[in-house]
Structure formats: C-alpha cells, structure tokens
C-alpha cells in the first residue's frame, strides 16, 4: 500500500489548524513558527506529488478510494491527473509563501492560521476529489473561512461588506452548481457521486444542455466570470495579504477547475452547446477587466481587476474546446496563480510600510525594497505575457485555440495585452520609481530575508516554466488528452 500522500496533504492543514487551538494564544512566535513548519511540509508534499507525477503513466495517479457513505453512493476518492497536479503544487507554493508573508499578523494569530489552514484543506480537497459530494464538501470548507478571515483580519474600511458579498456570491454560486450536481445524481440511475462513473453515465443531450449552465456558471462564479465577478475585486482588496494570495492565487482556480471537472467533463454535450456563447462572457472579462484595472487608483484594486482579466483567459481557454485552449488554460491557472500571489505579497509589503495603497501617494519604493521591486517587475512581465516567462507559455496556446474556433475573438482579446502592459508599466513607475514621498523617508525598512525567499520561490516558478516549458506542459498535456476524449476528440 503506497504512502497515502494525497490524504496526508489534504488533512495535514486542517489537523494542524485544530492542533493550533491547543497553543496558548499569547505564544505568537511559536504559533507562527508552527504554522510555517506545517506550510513548508505541505509545500514539500505538493512538490513531491508534482515531481512524481508521470505524464506518460496512468491518467489518475496516487489514487485512494475508501467507502464513506455507501448507501448514498458517497466515497472518499482522491487522485491527481495532469490538470490537478500543477494546481496541487500551486496550492503548496501559495500556502508556504502566504504563511511567510503573514509574519505580521499580531491580532489572534492562532485563529488566523487555523482558519487559513482549514481553507487550505478545502482547496487541496477540491483539486484531488474524484467524488462529487466530497468535491462540494471541500468546496464549502474552502469558502466559509474566507468570511472569517476577511471580516476579522481584513482592511477595516470595507471588510465586513466585502466578506459578506464574497461569501454570499460564492455560496449562491455553489448552490446553483449543487442543484445541477444533484440533478446528475438522481438522473444517472447509478446512485453514485463517483465522477469517473458519472463520466460514463450517458446523460441525454437535452439533459446535459439544460443543466450545464447551472453547474458551469455556478462554479465559474468563483472563477470570476463576467457578470458574476463583482465579489472578487472587493474581496481581494479587503482581505489580509495571505488571504488575497490564496483568494486570487488558488481559490479562483478552484472555481475554474470545478467548472471543468464537474461541468465540462461530466456534461460534455452541454459544454459543446453552451461554451460557444459563453466565450463572449470571457471576452468581456479579458478586455473589460484590463481597462478597469487601468483606471484604478488603489494599488490592490489594480491587481484585483487584473485577476478578473487573467481568469477570463483561463475560462476562455476552456471555452475553445480544443487541445491548445485547454493546454493554455491549464498552464495559465498555474502561471497566474503564482504571479498574482507574488503581486499581492508585494502589495502587502508596500502597504505594511506605507499604510496607504493609493498610487498617487506612493513612489520610490524600489530604493526601499529593491528585491520586492524586481519581483514585482517580473510578475508584471508575466502578466503582460512577455516571452521568457510562464505567462507567455500559457497565453500563446490559449490564443491559438481561440483562433481555431473564433478568430475575431482572438483579435479583440489581444487588445488586453497592450492595456495590461500600459497599466503594469504605470503602476511600476508610480509605485517603485520616482521619489519616495516625504512622510516615508527614514520610516521604511527593507523586507525580511524570509520574504525575499518567498518572492524568490515565486519568481523561480514563473521563470522556470517560461524558459523550460517542458517542466509543466507534458503534465498538463496528459490531463488535457482525457478531457478531449470525453468531448469526443473535439
């Protein structure tokens, strides 16, 4: 019996989170160190899973399958495939770097890290679940801590509003998806939530076309699809740094991934019917999101809307229903996850010093924190799709995929590239270069060593995939092949 690495990975955070409650609440340093150690172990485990994944091997690897509630056809069924393996690694990276960045949490760190870890378990769980019920279960586990994390530790000005809006949006989205999922459960006649069996259930075309929008859009809400993206910018801005990193870096990928896993893979006929028009929604994401990012004055809102734009590309890739689109979407989920985690980390570092996020009030921070500035520039280049970085490796095939199906959409979507370049350059210039405003002179310090390590890790991931696509593309490719076979080799 092989080492149940996926279960350990999924349960480690929540068990550690519960253990944290046994720590005395005033031993903040100890709590932080414990959280850091757990996050590091989770990162190593996720790395081990990713590196051991064999692109040429079984479709699903590290399989664990236990009965849970057999009367209802619910099982504990976990595995990774080519698409979820990079996402598991992404979660490990974001978890580790997110905890590093959270060294400054002074108010009830014990509770903070406990809730963060519950969130992490939910995220890992969704990525590895092959049982639809378990997937929903972990999904809800991932959403509810967001409310507490934002409402208690977020930005005082909007945290309650943002937390409420985010949670309501995501719960409603998941309820809509759940309705569709239950429809599948009851109609299949198989009395099982096992998704591999449901893939073969043979739902009628009419059934699939009816229920696909429920499931897909319900989950895509978490992916930030227009017009249901509204929770995201406010949620990003109000959340504390590590939570923003999780939110944009991983949670939004959760939505896209679930939309793929439960929507596209289980209802392929529905996908083929609806995605051709849904791609227009993603086009709005991509282009409109970029324009809105350009006019923001709050540093964090720029990044928030940039996420809306880039997630649009992921769902656009899905909507092409072809190899290139899925391949690019799979890489983009990883690439954007790392990039946006880096962005929010650096924004947090600047905010910690400046206590403002208004761009006109900032400036000259490259002299204060040069490594952070360079890291942000690298993230910016990834965001623009600059070749040599992972963003290009991801965006290029997505565009190729769009060319195959809707050439004019590719042409319009390309506008976002220039808009992204212009707002990135503007933000970099105004925040990091120029003059350090009077009030900050002498009151700022550089970032800590561990924070530099975190930024270094994030940059390494983006540059590594950018220069050597073969470290990720074959893995994603193997997962995409399976999706395509379900779609009938489209």
């Amino acid at each position: 019996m092989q080492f149940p690495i996926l279960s350990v990975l999924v349960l480690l955070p929540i068990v550690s989170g519960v253990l944290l409650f046994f720590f005395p609440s005033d031993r903040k340093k100890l709590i932080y160190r414990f959280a850091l150690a757990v996050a590091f172990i989770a990162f190593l485990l996720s790395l081990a899973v990713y590196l051991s994944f064999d692109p040429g091997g079984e479709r699903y690897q590290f399989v664990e399958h236990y009965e849970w509630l057999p009367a209802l056809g619910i099982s504990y069924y976990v595995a990774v495939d080519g698409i979820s393996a990079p996402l598991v690694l992404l979660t490990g990276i974001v978890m580790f770097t997110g905890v590093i960045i959270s060294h400054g949490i002074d108010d009830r760190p014990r509770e903070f890290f406990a809730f963060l870890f519950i969130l992490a378990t939910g995220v890992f769980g969704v990525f590895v679940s092959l049982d639809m019920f378990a997937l929903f279960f972990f999904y809800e586990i991932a959403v509810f801590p967001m409310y507490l994390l934002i409402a208690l530790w977020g930005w005082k000005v909007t945290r309650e509003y943002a937390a409420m809006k985010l949670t309501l949006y995501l719960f409603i989205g998941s309820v809509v998806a759940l309705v569709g999922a239950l429809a599948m459960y009851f109609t299949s006649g198989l009395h099982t939530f096992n998704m591999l069996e449901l893939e073969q259930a043979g739902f009628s075309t009419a059934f699939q076309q009816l229920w696909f929008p429920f499931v897909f859009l319900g989950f895509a809400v978490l992916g930030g699809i227009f017009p249901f993206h509204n929770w995201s910018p406010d949620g990003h801005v109000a959340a504390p740094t590590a939570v923003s990193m999780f939110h944009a870096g991983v949670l939004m990928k959760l939505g896209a991934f679930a939309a793929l896993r439960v929507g596209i893979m289980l209802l392929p006929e529905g996908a083929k019917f609806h995605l051709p028009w849904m791609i227009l929604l993603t086009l709005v994401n991509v282009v409109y999101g970029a324009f809105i990012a350009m006019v923001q004055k709050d540093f964090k809102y720029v990044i928030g809307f940039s996420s809306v734009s880039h997630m649009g590309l992921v769902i656009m890739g899905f909507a092409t229903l072809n190899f290139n689109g899925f391949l690019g979407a799979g890489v983009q989920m990883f690439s954007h996850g790392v990039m946006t985690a880096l962005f929010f980390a650096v924004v947090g570092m600047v905010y910690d010093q400046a206590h403002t996020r208004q761009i006109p009030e900032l400036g000259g921070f490259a002299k204060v924190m040069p490594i952070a500035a360079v890291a942000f520039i690298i993230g910016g280049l990834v965001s623009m799709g600059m070749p040599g970085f992972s963003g290009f490796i991801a965006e290029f095939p997505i565009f190729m995929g769009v060319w195959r199906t809707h050439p004019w959409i590719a042409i319009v979507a390309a506008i976002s590239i220039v808009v992204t370049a212009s707002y990135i350059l503007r933000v970099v210039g105004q925040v990091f270069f120029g003059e350090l405003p009077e009030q900050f002179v002498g009151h700022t310090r550089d970032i800590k060593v561990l924070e530099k390590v975190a930024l270094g890790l994030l940059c390494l991931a983006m540059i590594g995939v950018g220069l050597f696509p073969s470290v990720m593309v074959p893995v994603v490719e193997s997962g995409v092949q399976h999706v395509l076979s379900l779609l009938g080799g489209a």
Partner: protein
Amino acid sequence: MDFFSDKLLSLILFTPAVAALLILLLPKDNKRLTRWVALVASLIPFALALVVWFNFDGAPVEFGFRFREQYTWYAAINATFHVGVDGLSLTMVLLTTLLTPIAVLASFNVEENVKAYMALFLLLETGMLGVFLALDLLLFFVFWEIGLVPMYFLINRWGSEKGERELWKGIKVKARTYASFKFMIYTMAGSLGLLLAIQMLGVVSGTFDIPTLFERWTGLEGTLFGLPVNTVKTVAFWAFVVAFAIKVPVWPFHTWLPDAHTEAPTAGSMILAGVLLKLGAYGFLRLVLPLYPDQARAGAGVLAFLATMAIIFGAFSAYGQKDFKRLVAYSSVNHMGFVVLGIAAAAYAVGTTNAESATIALNGAVLQMFNHGLSSAGMFFLVGVIYERTHTRDLEEMGGLFPLVPVYGGILIFTSMASLGLPGLNGFVSEFLVVRGAWPIFTVYTALSMLGLLFTGAYVLKGIAKTLQGPLNERWRGELAEINRREVIVMAPLMALMLWLGVWPAWLLGVINRAMLALFG
C-alpha cells in the same frame, strides 16, 4: 572541442545572458571589475562570430542555413528551439556582436548602478541575437519581445536627467520616462498584430518552423476561416508589416524614435539605432518577403512611397532640429528609408525582368543596414562625448569648438561624412546600390529620394557647422577636454570599418550578395 563546434550559435546567443547573471553576483561597489567583466564577456560572442564568419563557406547547408541547431522546446504546440545563419543573419550577428562591446566600452562613464546597467545590456544582446538567429517563428517572437524589456529600463533608469513631458491627463513625468513608455507601448502594440498573425500561422500550418513555413504557408490554397486564402494572407501580411514598420521605423510609424533615441543613455542610443532598428528590416527580409511574395509585390508601391517620405521628411526634420542628439535620431529615419526603399524595390521586381536590379537593391539595403549601424553608433557616441563635457545638446550653445578639440572635430567630420554618403566611405556604397537598384523599378520615388539626399547633406553639414565652426562660444574656452583615449578606442574600429567598406566593400558584399541570390534569386 566537438561539443562547442556544433553549438556555436547557441554559445554566441547565450553567453551574454549567462554573463549578465554572473555580473549580478559581482560585488556591488567594484565598478571597475563590473565594467571589465562586461567588456570581456561581450567580446566572446564577437570572437565566436568571427569563427563562424571564417568557417562560413565550408559549412554544410541545411534548408538554406548553416550551423543549424534544433532542440525540442515547446513540443505541445510544435515549436522548437531552432537556430541557424545565412549570409543575411550572419551580417547582422557580426554587427550586433561588434557594436555591443563598443557600446559597453562607451558605457564606462556610467556611474550609477553599474551592475544592473551592464547586466541589462548583455541581456539585450541576447535578445537581439536571438531574433537574427531564430529559425522558428515562435522563438523569433520570443526574442523580439524580450529585447524590449532591457531597453525600456536602460532608457527609463539611465536616460537623460533633464526634461519633462506630459504622459497623459496632467501627469507630468521625466522625459526619459515618457520616451521609454512610448517606446515600449508603441512597439508592443505594433507587435500585437505580429503575435496574432504568428498564432494564426501556427494553427493553420501546424508548425512554427520557418524553413517549413516557407513551403507550407506559401503553398496554401482554398479557404481559411471561411475567407479566401489570399484575403487571410493579405491581412496577415499587413499585420507583419505594421509590426516591422514600427521597428525600422517606416514613416509614419516613426514617432516613438526621436524621443527614445534622444532620451536614452549614449550607449543605449548606439544600440537602439545601431542594431534594434535593423531587427525590423531583418523581419521584412527574413519573413515578409519569403512568406508573402504576392502580397509584398502588391504592397511594394505603398512601401516605396513611405520609404521616400521617410527619406525626405526624416532629412527635413533632422535639418530643423536644435538638439544635436535629436538631429542624429531623425537621421536614422532618413537612412533607414533607403533600406526600406531597397526592400520595396526588391519586393516588386523579384522574379521579373528587373530581377538583377532587385538583387542590387537588396544588396544595397542590407549593406545600408550594416553601414548605418556603424555610422549611427558612431554619431550617437560623438554626441555623447560632447554632452559629457558641455552638458548640453543644444546646437546654438556650441560653436567654433574645432580649435579647442581638433581630434574630436576630425573624428566628428569623418563620421559625419560617412553618414552623409561621401564617396570613399561606406555610406556612399550602400546608398548608391539602393538607388541604382531601385531606379529602374520605382523611378519617381528614387528620384524624389535623391532630393532627400540633398537635405541629408544639409543636416549633416549643419551639425558639423554649428558645433565645430563659426564663432567660439566663450564659455567653453579652457573648459573643454579633448577626446580621451578610451573614447578614441570606441570610435577607431567604427572608423576603420567605415573606410574599409567605403574603399573595398567586396568582403562583405560578397557574403550579402550570395545570401540575397539564394533567398530571392
């Protein structure tokens, strides 16, 4: 040794990047060490390029290219790491690897953040070399875009200290910030069409391999995306043309150039004018003409018209400048106009009765690319030398400097004459070839561009007259240091080549000619 000999091009390509990373590890305060490491590191690709040059004729030819290397890179979308040279790219590689050490030497007077500066410079070299060496369209695009980033920072961080421009709606920024931003966004926007067209080519042809595309893409028939193939090809053609036209630059897409060249640090301008502009022209020759021969023929008239406008208006604009550096910047528009005129003539006449003239025009265009690289790098450096001493680029502030700095004056006159196209120096040879080649094909445009040549003489002589001749501006008496040894060493190879190519150009023209005949004969 074998390991190196069949990876020569990869070595040439990546040595600068590896050196850039090494430089980042050097101790921060030792500027001298950083400068010398950068200089030695930049001489390595030059030495290797010479090795390639001298072994060129004996090397086996595969798909029309020599020293070919191909490795898997992004297999999932059929893009490989594929590099190779022919006479055209080798000429450009030689220019790049020659100008970079010269520009590094010219940068020895940079005092701030020397490590970052040198690292960016070397990364820039890899970017430029990659464009010239790439035999895969995706790889071409990767290097095309990558080169923008170091240049953006070089202008933004080390560019002119003075000057202010309005970026948009009341936001005032330093002139160098404005220039770098405009450069980056303008070029990226232009490259969008190129990106889309490349994606489309890849999707339709199933490969990004350039030699393969030459056959597969040109051989396409029927309909694409529900439109006739020729319509799609025409759109893709213009997408490619716009991207390259911005880079060359072809009038009226040139407006980013005067600001970028003027505000860039001296060595940055040398490389910008010396090599980066040639990337656009190279794109025309390597990609546009072979992939879209019919569309190129149809569009050649427009291109020739724009080229003529560049020659004439570039010259007029240069003549009207008060800022010496901006004058030289516009001279680039003027000189590159001849390159485009030659390319347009060739696009129109290749394979027709005027094929011989087309080849002559192509020879002229490519030689002009090399020559302008030398002379513009030289001119920008000389402007930098005088700026170093006077802290002004205003021509009205100078005057009568010749007796104070005779050696500098002599060098300035020499280089200006090459820029002007004086027979006996390199500029004459290439401009003559372009005019001779384009005359039978586009007589009217060629005749008009000779009018432009008249004004070329005017602005060059204005530059010399305002700085060196006339009454001495008293504030410089005793204040002006003569050109120093390092600066002479920077100019010496350029001047030697300008003379050599002017008197006996065959050593380079032979290689160019054979390449042009092989590509378009």
